[in-house]
């Protein structure tokens, strides 16, 4: 294999691909990236056996075809630290890869491409296309609510549910839930559910741009594959049953509050300072036209914020983990947040106040 590529063209795909490579690996070849050159197309692959990303770079001129693997972390570090306008020459010789750029030379160890595992996906159950920015929005709106290292392992991921002309994603850690639904052109008589693992979701979101370019999405029994012009992302699915999210969507909340998103967000983050560091609880006192947020900590310190809100009805006192509220206030992008409450033991529904809002957030209260 022999090729010349500009640092500028190589760096971004190389960084994204090597993002999946885990630092500590059981199989040595998994700490490597696979380089494959066919004519003027260079593809780079990184995998941890659960998630695989292939990035493609078009070279200015064809090189000598070949395939080889090199240590991912070192390769990225070298390419990153070369000057911005550098050209990089890679030559494979005698089981080594020689990297030359200007007056710099590096010799990297290799492992044969034939040792490199690929994530096998099964026959496809469903295939559809949608804009990259739709995928990006779905993930960005909900990913924060995924569980981390929960024993209910199916919560350490994101549910993708595909229906006729609709893609919905749901994430929950058992205490709060985020859901986002977008219209996409998909033809299916059934409702198809798949749970993407947490790591796959986060990597996929880095690959997606806020652009209208289309991606192809393929769901099979055990895998999901998302293909754009520059990348192919493949991930195993989490084998498990996601909880029935529709059952926990609150209904019949009679206390509807509209508040300024910025004011709420700032008030939450200020009161959080004096909340109990462990439980992060704050008390919300809702009265006609006014919301008071109070936090106390074991040192007997207290924070209180008063906000003017659009509300009339019975008063209510209810406790929440302030981090859950802040997370929602951070992703919503309307000026106003609509909060629907019923009582101190029932969940709150947070959403954008418009009719065509695509996201819903459910937060369970705390008993304080």
């Amino acid at each position: 294999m022999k090729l010349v590529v500009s640092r500028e063209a190589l760096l971004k795909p190389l960084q994204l691909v090597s993002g999946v490579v885990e630092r500590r690996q059981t199989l040595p070849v998994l700490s490597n990236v696979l380089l494959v050159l066919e004519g003027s197309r260079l593809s780079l692959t990184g995998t941890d056996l659960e998630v695989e990303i292939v990035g493609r770079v078009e070279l200015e001129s064809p090189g000598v075809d070949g395939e080889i693997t090199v240590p991912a972390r070192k390769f990225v570090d070298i390419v990153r630290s070369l000057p911005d306008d550098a050209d990089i020459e890679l030559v494979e010789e005698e089981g080594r890869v020689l990297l030359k750029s200007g007056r710099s030379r590096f010799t990297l160890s290799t492992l044969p491409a034939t040792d490199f595992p690929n994530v096998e996906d099964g026959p496809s159950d469903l295939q559809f296309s949608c804009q990259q920015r739709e995928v990006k929005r779905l993930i960005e709106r909900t990913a924060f609510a995924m569980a981390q290292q929960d024993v209910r392992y199916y919560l350490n991921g994101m549910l993708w549910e595909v229906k006729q002309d609709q893609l919905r994603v749901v994430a929950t850690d058992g205490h709060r839930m985020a859901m986002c639904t977008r219209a996409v052109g998909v033809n299916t008589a059934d409702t198809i559910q798949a749970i993407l693992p947490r790591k796959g979701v986060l990597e996929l979101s880095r690959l997606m741009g806020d652009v209208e370019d289309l991606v192809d999405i393929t769901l099979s029994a055990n895998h999901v594959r998302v293909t754009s012009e520059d990348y192919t992302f493949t991930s195993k699915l989490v084998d498990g049953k996601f909880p029935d999210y529709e059952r926990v969507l609150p209904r019949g909340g009679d206390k509807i509050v509209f508040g300024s998103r910025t004011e709420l967000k700032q008030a939450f983050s200020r009161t959080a300072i004096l909340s109990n560091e462990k439980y992060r609880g704050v008390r919300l006192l809702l009265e006609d036209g006014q919301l008071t947020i109070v936090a106390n900590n074991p040192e007997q310190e207290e924070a209180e914020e008063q906000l003017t809100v659009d509300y009339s009805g019975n008063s209510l006192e209810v406790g929440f983990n302030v981090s859950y509220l802040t997370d929602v206030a951070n992703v919503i992008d309307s000026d106003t947040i609509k909060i629907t409450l019923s009582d101190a033991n029932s969940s709150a529904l947070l959403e954008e106040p418009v009719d065509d809002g695509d996201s819903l957030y459910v937060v369970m209260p705390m008993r304080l």
Partner: protein
Amino acid sequence: MAYLIPVFIYSFGGVAVSRTIIHCDADCFFAAIEMRDNPQLHGRPIAVGGRPDRRGVISTCNYPARQFGVRSAMASAYALRLCPGLIILPHRMTHYRDASQKIMAIFHQFTDLVEPLSLDEAFLDVTDAVNDSNSARAIAEQIREQVVAQLGITVSAGIAPNKFLAKVASDWRKPDGLFEIKPEQVAEFVARLPVSCIPGVGKVTGERLAQLQVKNCGDLLRFDERELCERFGQFGSRLYHCSRGIDSRLVRVERQRKSVSVEQTFAQDMTVDEACETYLTELIARLQVRIDKLTDQYGVGKAFVKVKFADFSSTTLERANDEFSYCNFAELIREAASRHDSRVRLLGVGVRLTEQAAAPVAEVEQLGLFGG
């Protein structure tokens, strides 16, 4: 966030409430995972552990290896001498953790009151899950079937009215066994149980009991609690209760840790100064990682160090410290090492944990979306 709050499952005012406890324990867990992933290993003596040429220690071995006398915590080199054909495989912790998560998820289907003891072992309080149509035995069978079906490894289970007996019971028919001690069978069962089954009765206590002509728990019935406490201190009380099949410890959803520590055995013995220079920075870094992972309910108390000498004797030293710096740990280590004029084979550093004074449990409770 889900498990921050230690939950006391039930309380009683001096009256023992009858519970139904299942103790589940995978059979030679690490080795079973290795055999599952590589069927060629079946029937051959295998172990998972550290390398014999690096002073490794056996973590788990399968039953063919046990026939040769190989046991966990045995030096790998010694195990190889007992069983020259022993295949010693390196740990694949990510696989074991993955399997562990699945096992714990199966346990959680039957009750929320699960107290994990290790990756593959837990107490389940199924008192409230048992009813006319679903006996504890049926639950244990379902757990065992599901683990085989989903993970391809076997689990032994013991059912009893308390933790002590449930653990004894799970060992009774191991491997791949199920044993139940019903409340009405307790007295008869315990009477014939060797005292060595009581946790804490090892070689020394066993010998002291033998001098009193005590072999089985039944032999302890002629002593009252005061007599046992006079002879064995606090442990006497535990002997008294266990020998009568009484164990009032609760199934706690979260275990309270008492300390956190890391240690390193060296490839070669060295002087204490060399050891500190080579390993202490890394040990402190590893300890920090472990401390960072603890939930906020723990406070950090005294620092302690462990030094093991070339002759395998070891000593520990602890002291309250304002900060856990390199200098403080090094000073403790040098002081501990000065007790013995010998080269050093292992260093350990750790901190005692204190329970953080937080708001009482009942005052704060995060409610769950899915009734959890």
